[in-house]
């Protein structure tokens, strides 16, 4: 049987994959000069822009890779568009950041952009996947290049260690998830998410309940590793710190969004009937994740480690509405979070320091970077003038309260206060009188700061931009 393929539906990942191959080839055949590095970066950006244009132009629902009477493996709808747009936008900022990183010359450029584009192709495919095999393949496509990216800087022991840690954790999580998926497949005999839901809705077969529950828990655990949810979080800080900063930004936004997209798809499309099993688990995971992440962030003095734990804590806020079976609030929070977190990473890349104290007086020394970082941190804390963060929190709080999880709302309330402590501590440093001269990153990193800040400010002024897309 020959499947007909709707090339327009898969245009975005296709463009990224083709560009990935092209970049790799070009680097091999062009002379290694600084000009070529920049050109490859621009080519990558152009591919991202083209894919983004395709995503924006895709309206309505498109399906492809369909098996008659079973279902389709690839579906583009409103949520997919938001996730793909998020991955591509974040990818563009990461590329701009890496242009700064690659200027140092100790990283092979072609491989770097190839791996980056491959990961982004995975991140764009994943939210559109509607069968378990496609999901796993896409998720691995996001994960595998990131190990290599982490370790790509030569003679860097910390980077290699981080890559190994990430690799081991990721492989274990994939194994756990595959085992869960095999259980689900064994019980239902289907891999398409809709078909699984339909099969589970049938009158119960003896002994199926516990197996489905175990399968569901293992799938949640597998994704839990990817999104660094507690208790699968311990790798986050070391890996973020060891990886180059652009990779840390990629991990904290793109990989995380992909993990959440997969989790949301499996839970809400394949296992909606089992929500009684997984909602309490997700709620407890959410509460633990935000609390542990925030508490660990309190004592950090390294900016990237702080951002690592803060992004673990933020994962908790994203998980919270999923515990009420609501995907929209989680998606909205992820989009807002991506903008603010990338702003913070961009400033850290543009003005790198090993300690928070290095950022003392940044506002007076470099007003643009200082104010952008202050804005991002206040957004992450969720206070005005960082209205994007405030509205993100309101969206999540609203779903949690409306879903009847009062205790989780209270845990979140306490956590916003814990989180504020370290965000405001960093922000306050930015405004203290300056003492030392400081080195700064290169041009593209500053463009990244500008882009990310503009988006975060835009979301603050008109949060409707994101929310309306969700429908």
């Amino acid at each position, binding site marked *: 049987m020959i499947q007909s393929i709707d090339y327009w539906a898969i245009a975005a990942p296709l463009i990224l994959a083709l560009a990935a191959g092209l970049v790799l080839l070009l680097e091999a055949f062009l002379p290694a000069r600084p000009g070529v590095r920049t050109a490859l970066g621009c080519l990558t950006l152009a591919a991202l822009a083209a894919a983004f244009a395709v995503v924006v132009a895709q309206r309505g629902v498109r399906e492809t890779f369909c098996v008659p009477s079973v279902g389709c493996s690839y579906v583009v709808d409103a949520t997919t568009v938001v996730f793909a747009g998020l991955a591509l936008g974040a990818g563009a900022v990461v590329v701009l950041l890496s242009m700064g990183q690659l200027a140092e010359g100790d990283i092979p450029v072609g491989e770097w952009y190839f791996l980056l584009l491959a990961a982004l192709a995975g991140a764009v495919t994943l939210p559109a996947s509607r069968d378990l095999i496609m999901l796993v393949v896409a998720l691995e496509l996001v994960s595998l290049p990131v190990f290599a990216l982490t370790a790509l800087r030569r003679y860097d022991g910390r980077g290699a260690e981080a890559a190994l840690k990430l690799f081991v954790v990721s492989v274990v999580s994939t194994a756990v998830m595959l085992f869960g998926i095999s259980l689900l497949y064994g019980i239902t005999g289907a891999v398409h998410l809709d078909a699984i839901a339909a099969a589970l809705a049938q009158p119960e077969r003896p002994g199926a309940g516990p197996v489905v529950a175990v399968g569901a828990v293992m799938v949640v655990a597998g994704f839990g590793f990817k999104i660094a949810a507690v208790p699968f979080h311990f790798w986050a800080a070391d890996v973020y710190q060891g990886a180059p900063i652009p990779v840390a930004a990629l991990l904290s936004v793109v990989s995380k969004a992909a993990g959440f997209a997969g989790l949301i798809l499996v839970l809400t499309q394949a296992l909606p009937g089992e929500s009684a099993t997984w909602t309490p688990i997700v709620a407890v995971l959410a509460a633990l994740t935000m609390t542990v992440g925030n508490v660990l962030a309190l004592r950090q003095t390294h900016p990237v480690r702080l951002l690592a734990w803060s992004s673990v804590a933020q994962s908790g806020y994203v998980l919270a509405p999923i515990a009420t079976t609501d995907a929209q609030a989680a998606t909205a929070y992820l989009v807002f979070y991506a903008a603010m977190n990338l702003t913070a990473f961009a400033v850290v890349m543009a003005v790198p320091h090993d300690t928070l104290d290095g950022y003392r007086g940044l506002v007076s020394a470099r*007003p643009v970077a200082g104010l952008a970082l202050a804005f991002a941190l*206040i957004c992450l804390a969720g*206070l*005005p*003038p960082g*209205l994007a963060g*405030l*509205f993100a*929190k*309101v*969206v999540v*709080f*609203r779903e949690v*309260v*409306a879903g009847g999880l*009062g205790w989780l*709302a*209270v845990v*979140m*309330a*306490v956590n*916003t*206060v814990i989180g*504020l*402590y370290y965000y*405001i501590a960093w922000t*306050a440093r930015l*405004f203290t009188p300056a003492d030392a001269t400081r080195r700064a990153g290169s041009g593209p990193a500053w463009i990244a700061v500008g882009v990310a800040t503009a988006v975060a400010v835009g979301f603050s002024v008109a*949060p*409707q931009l994101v*929310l*309306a897309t*969700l429908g």
Partner: protein
Amino acid sequence: MNVLLVVLLVLPLLGAAALLVPGPLGAVAVRFGLAVSGVVFAVAVAVASAFDYSAAGRVQGTVDLAWIPWLGVRFHVGIDGISLPLVVLTALLTLLCLVYLAGHRPPRVRELVFALLVLELGMIGTFLALDLLLFFVFFEVVLIPMYFVIAVWGGEGRRRAAYKFILYTLLGSAVLLVGLLYVWAQTGTLDMVRLAAEHPMSRTAQILAFVAIGLGLAVKTPMWPLHTWLPDAHTEAPTVGSVLLAGVLLKMGTYGFARVAIPILPEGAAAVAPWLGALAVVGIVYGALACLAQRDLKRLIAYSSVGHMGFVLLGFATLTPVGINAALFGNVAHGLITGLLFFLVGALKERHGTSDLDQLGSGLLGRLPYVGSLLTFACVASLGLPGLAGFWGEMLALQGAYEPAAGLPRGLFVTFMVIGGLGAVLTAAYFLVMLSRLTHGPWGGPGPTLHDATRVELTAWVPLVVLILVFGLWPSALLRLTTPAVHALLGVP
């Protein structure tokens, strides 16, 4: 009128934004701030004169625009007899703070003026908002600028005090948000006017929501035992910070009771009122006793605020027109009197380098006759001398407690009244003790080189003195405004 309300919000915002632009404005930041807040005050006065006093219970000048349809948040503002006095008070105190700054060149003045303008935006916005989430957003706007006002321009222990302030109040805000969203989840609307008219929630839900919202507001007010952030914040904040903190920020908490908690959740309020009243009188007595033990003048006034806010909360707890009128009156009076007190104490601290009572020495009236006599006036007003503004709030609150709303345990409230009355006596005691130590007696401490009140300082203080006298002698000027609004709020004819 509608336009004027929007202008009230836009002006401080634009002013603050203009200060962000690098350029020559930094050199004349105080004058610029004076101009902006002067215009804001003028607009506030214009609003007050355009206000239809024959319908003070009705919301006027409504502006209702869609903002974030997905969340159901609307830009819905308006003004009535409850919010009008507070808006004018805010505009006045901000202006006076900038007048005060004009005579004192603090470091990094541009940033300070920026923070004050953002504060003004948040404070006025809170009093104008008629959408629950819009109210919350404005409620939160003040946190970051006030944090920086304390943390940058504050005293010795400023960092700790600033953290305590922002973490404590954010915890309150987060609980408040949960409560507001619970109301939304139950009713599907965020419109305060509609919610206050319809009360669509069940009794249990109302009690739950009232507890959450009340706790959030009580942190800001502050209500005993949630007050512990206040003494530190007031003590460490610079003079203008203390003035705005005591004069307006605390009112945002009590205003929330009058605007959100009581009208939207009447049954919840009735159920929780005895507890609120009990904590209020504990606050009154605790504040008074704590004041008696203070050695630091700023701390003493901070604790006196806890007591005064106790009276305001007691007024609310009675749920009668008299009591709520008392609370609203006490709100404004406390804003004026404590604002003046903090200005004066700030002036003393600036001259002596300390606000410790022992080091300040005695004989202030002889040394600094203007400052000394104004301090005496403000203290006497604060302890509730009849004929001055402080009297009416306390007297009416006690009167309200004598005859609480139907359904509330009268015996209990009469007990509250008696204890509250004792608290008022204690308040008089600590102020008189303080005055006798500070203003009377022979000259002591550092000598004759100190200069008395400057012209700029007097410009900042005299309006407050005049208003304290006006509202003391002619309380109906304010009560005429609040009474119809309170009747509308409680649904009594």
